[in-house]
């Protein structure tokens, strides 16, 4: 087939090169391929008897990147725990997927294989949710990185099924302390600057898109100073008929939205590399929210007229991953000269791999093209036919009659060699709480309330338009003066459904606490799920209908200890999902969050797991809020308080270490327990924790008050709408958790389309949408 690459410059000779030479080539081209991957590529091209083109190597490198393929979660691992060793074939399948399959919920409509997870919302509608991270870009350019993070996850929601209307954004951040006084390596931004830039980026993009940002949180820890974490989530509403998508050979490949430029090249491969001073400026972009709003408006109008049969967004890898993913099961023929460009001097591989924002790819029946063009023209949104889907099983790309890519889809999506990694988990010896200076309770409480992880987030929340679309009926700020924290937001999406007489609503809550993870990531995971579900229960959502999303942010999995901790956390997720009978519907991991500090030492982030939970509130008018309603109302503490202050804010305040982290009971069994299925009880069934008797009257202002302290106090609402509500489960100790309640994030399946293993959810990448720069 190949008359490939007549032009010599396009051919990248690799046959006959040594591993060392290939590695050097990879470094020079920012390809981030391992030795084993190079060997597999070499073998493939040897078999087809030709050299690859540059565009082909780029396509393979990006498709196989950690960002897209989630290699760590899907490759074999030898896991040593204490003296025992066991083999894990596919961590994702054995934890997240296994738990979801075990709890089997008929209301899950799409799991792990599309751009977001989808659950039923009444009979007619469905909710799609995805949560992404955009860590590395936000470290380099906080404003642009965070803004494009929002843009990327919104496109995930536009690209799930035939497209959902985004109705809620959530944002959770982890930063170094803004008053950090220590040194920083050359080129790193101070945490204060990072925080300001990220908040402004989320604000400017989310507000312009007209999507309420009503959930999320912030966690401060100096170990995030070089690697801030930016989790962006979106929930969308779609009619159930739009959940399924299908590409047919003969369908046209249509690109819509922004033009293609040189921006964002190598976002995917870069996201897996250590942050360094040599970051290419092209890896970072400034978002164009209004361009994306045009796409949104036009796309949903076209969806309702059923003018296309499949859609996905251009994320990491640009056209290469979007088209490679859509055409994975059939084949695709692309003509790059059709793509509208921002600048005219782009090379073929640059057009193919560019990660310019605000673009999506549709599969369109030729008969519908004219009508589709009219819809997009009406919104002032550009559209171009790039080629068509074929039956060849090959990914073929031409540029001005010259073949630049001609790859077997099977090799591309399934040829990735799996390398076994080592992982170690050494349980910490039981340590009694020790050290620190005792403080008077009053003094300790004052310090805790003023702690960065507890204090008010009003400064941030007010910058987000959290009420656009007119559906935020439980707002992120609560209380008489609207300045106290809330557990979770409740959204009544009438702007999306068009029906103000239908009061069906949904809530999104979060759970996260990296402090527990420093002691034991397994219990951290259980606590995070528990917290997210309790937050939902506290606003009147139905926890038996809760769907979960997992977002792991970790340091390098090449470090066996880090990988061991990651496995512990993933197993915690599995047991929590089974124990609470709540399925995971989507998720994502971002690894390699570590950088050299000013002394050249590796600074790793604490293993961080954000759990987002989404559940319907069948009647939004019966939602409840956490603020104390009146004098004389009784307070109830639900659940037992154990001696589990390990990792708590109270310990931190005293300077004490050690101790037990809260152990969420019911100890999850391997079979899905029914315990939590009845809504009222559900969340409360995990009593854990200790709250150091500190009661503060309405927990002051944290934005998502974490489960912690505030949760111990239940206010009986003056109106007892639901028996279940008043009890807010008690939660735990007071580790502040930053992020909790406010956001919903959506799940993204880590799926990717590309990997083809059909039956079970996969998390492969491609569809999973890597968005360009995201990490």
């Amino acid at each position, binding site marked *: 087939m190949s008359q490939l690459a007549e032009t010599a410059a396009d051919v990248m000779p690799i046959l006959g090169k040594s591993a060392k030479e290939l590695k050097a080539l990879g470094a020079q081209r920012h390809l981030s391929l391992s030795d084993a991957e190079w060997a597999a590529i070499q073998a493939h091209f040897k078999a087809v008897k030709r050299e690859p083109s540059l565009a082909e190597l780029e396509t393979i490198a990006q498709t196989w990147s950690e960002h897209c393929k989630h290699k760590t979660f899907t490759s074999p691992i030898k896991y040593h725990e204490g003296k025992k060793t066991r083999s894990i074939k596919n961590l994702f399948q054995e934890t997240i997927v296994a738990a979801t399959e075990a709890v089997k919920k008929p209301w899950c409509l799409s799991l792990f294989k599309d751009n977001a997870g989808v659950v039923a919302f009444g009979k007619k509608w469905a909710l799609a949710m995805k949560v992404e991270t955009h860590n590395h870009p936000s470290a380099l350019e906080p404003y642009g990185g965070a803004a494009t993070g929002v843009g990327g996850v919104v496109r995930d929601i536009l690209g799930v099924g035939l497209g959902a209307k985004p109705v809620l954004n959530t944002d959770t951040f982890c930063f170094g302390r803004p008053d950090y006084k220590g040194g920083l390596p050359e080129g790193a931004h101070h945490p204060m600057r990072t925080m300001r830039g990220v908040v402004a980026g989320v*604000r400017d993009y989310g*507000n*312009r*898109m*007209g999507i309420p940002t009503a959930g999320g949180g912030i966690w401060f820890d100096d170990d995030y100073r070089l690697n801030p974490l930016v989790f962006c989530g979106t929930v969308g509403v779609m009619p159930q008929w739009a959940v399924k998508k299908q590409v047919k050979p003969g369908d046209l490949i249509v690109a819509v939205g922004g033009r293609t430029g040189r921006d964002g090249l190598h976002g995917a491969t870069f996201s897996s590399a250590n942050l360094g001073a040599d970051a290419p400026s092209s890896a970072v972009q400034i978002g*164009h*929210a*209004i361009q994306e*709003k*045009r796409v949104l*408006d036009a796309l949903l109008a076209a969806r309702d007229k059923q003018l296309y049969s499949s859609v996905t967004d251009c994320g990491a890898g640009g056209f290469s991953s979007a088209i490679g993913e859509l055409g994975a099961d059939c084949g695709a023929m692309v003509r790059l000269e059709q793509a509208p460009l921002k600048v005219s001097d782009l090379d073929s591989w640059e057009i193919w791999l560019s990660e310019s924002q605000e673009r999506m790819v549709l599969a369109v029946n030729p008969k519908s093209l004219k009508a589709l063009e009219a819809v997009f023209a*009406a*919104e*002032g949104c550009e559209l171009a036919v790039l080629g068509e889907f074929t039956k060849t099983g090959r990914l073929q790309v031409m540029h001005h009659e010259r073949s630049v890519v001609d790859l077997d889809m099977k090799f591309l999506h399934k040829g990735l060699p799996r390398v076994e990694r080592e992982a170690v988990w050494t349980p910490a010896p039981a340590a009694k709480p020790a050290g620190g200076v005792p403080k008077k309770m009053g003094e300790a409480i004052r310090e805790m309330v003023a702690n960065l992880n507890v204090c008010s987030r009003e400064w941030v*929340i*007010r*910058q*987000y*338009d*959290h*009420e*656009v*679309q*007119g*559906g935020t*009926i*439980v*707002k992120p*700020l*609560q209380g*008489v003066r*609207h300045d106290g924290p809330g557990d979770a937001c409740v959204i*009544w999406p*009438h*702007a*999306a459904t*068009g029906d*103000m007489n239908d*009061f069906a609503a949904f809530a999104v809550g979060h759970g996260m606490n990296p402090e527990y993870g420093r002691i034991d990531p397994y219990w951290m995971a259980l606590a995070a799920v528990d917290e997210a579900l309790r937050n939902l229960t506290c606003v009147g959502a139905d926890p038996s209908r809760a769907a979960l999303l997992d977002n792991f942010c970790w340091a390098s999995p090449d470090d066996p200890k880090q990988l061991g901790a990651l496995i512990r956390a993933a197993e915690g997720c599995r047991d929590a999902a089974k124990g609470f009978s709540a399925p995971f519907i989507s998720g994502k991991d971002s690894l390699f969050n570590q950088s050299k500090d000013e002394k050249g030492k590796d600074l790793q982030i604490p293993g961080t797991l954000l759990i987002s939970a989404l559940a319907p509130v069948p009647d*939004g*008018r019966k*939602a*409840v*809020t956490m*603020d104390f*309603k009146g004098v004389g109302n009784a307070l109830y503490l639900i659940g037992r308080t154990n001696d589990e202050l390990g990792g708590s804010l109270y310990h931190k305040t005293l300077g004490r270490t050690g101790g037990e982290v809260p152990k969420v009971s019911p100890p999850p069994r391997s079979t899905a327990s029914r315990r939590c299925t009845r809504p009222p009880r559900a969340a409360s069934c995990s009593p854990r924790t200790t709250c150091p008797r500190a009661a503060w009257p309405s927990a002051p202002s944290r934005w998502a008050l974490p489960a912690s302290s505030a949760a111990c106090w239940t206010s009986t*609402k*003056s*109106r007892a709408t639901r028996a279940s509500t008043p009890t807010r489960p008690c939660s735990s100790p007071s580790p502040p958790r930053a992020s909790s309640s406010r956001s919903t994030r959506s799940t993204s399946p880590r799926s990717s389309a590309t990997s083809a293993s059909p039956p079970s959810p996969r998390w492969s990448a491609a569809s999973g949408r890597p968005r360009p720069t995201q990490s």
Partner: protein
Amino acid sequence: MKKPKVLILRSPGTNCELETANAFKAVGGEPELVHISELGAGKKKLMDYAIFALPGGFSYGDDVGAGKVLANRVRHTLTDLRQFVRLGRPVIGICNGFQVLVKAGILPSSNACDQSASFTVNDSGKFEARWTHLRINTQSSCLFFKGLPEMIELPVAHGEGKLVLKSPRHLEDLKKTKSIALQYVSEDGKLLGYPHNPNGSLFNIAGLTNPEGNVLGLMPHPERFVSLHHHPNWTRQTYRKAPVGLEMFKNAVDYAR
């Protein structure tokens, strides 16, 4: 009963059009979302509608200045808007829509074509979303406020909402013509500064009307208070009045019938 047709203007970046349409629908109007390009191409005509609404959002990203680019398009495209106003048909501009009406020279007085007011960045220097207490000017003849109590609450959400005037003389004119429709106040009705006045607007102005009372522009969002459950304190059950926003839309629809 007759359902008055409501033109809800869209442009790239408009983002409150759906909830505004739902509000009009709830009070018996027949809203239609119309893109500015459809009006420009002559596919739709403003004069075919009974009510004209400019919803909130970030038209054209608010690049160059809030509402500025859309205001220019409105000037060039909607040449019949002044006639629409003269005929006494209700016009409401909310948030970005208010900015557009002011920058297009329709408010405070649509007779003078020149722009005499404008908006600058909030004194706080940032976008702010919060509920505000507002006082309706009971002397103004604004049809949208008919029958409403003097003190109301509505949410604001904007970054460039500080209303300023070309000169102090204009403020006196506005007072004389009773064009100041709505002011930010504290809970007990006083003209106080931040945060009661969320953006630093001159004389705490939150909304302007034309002297005839059929055009209203306001920074707060009435479409975000069309159900009791929109009020931030509804779970406390301390707020029992009818949702103010809904009443405003109802006034317009009833008037147009």
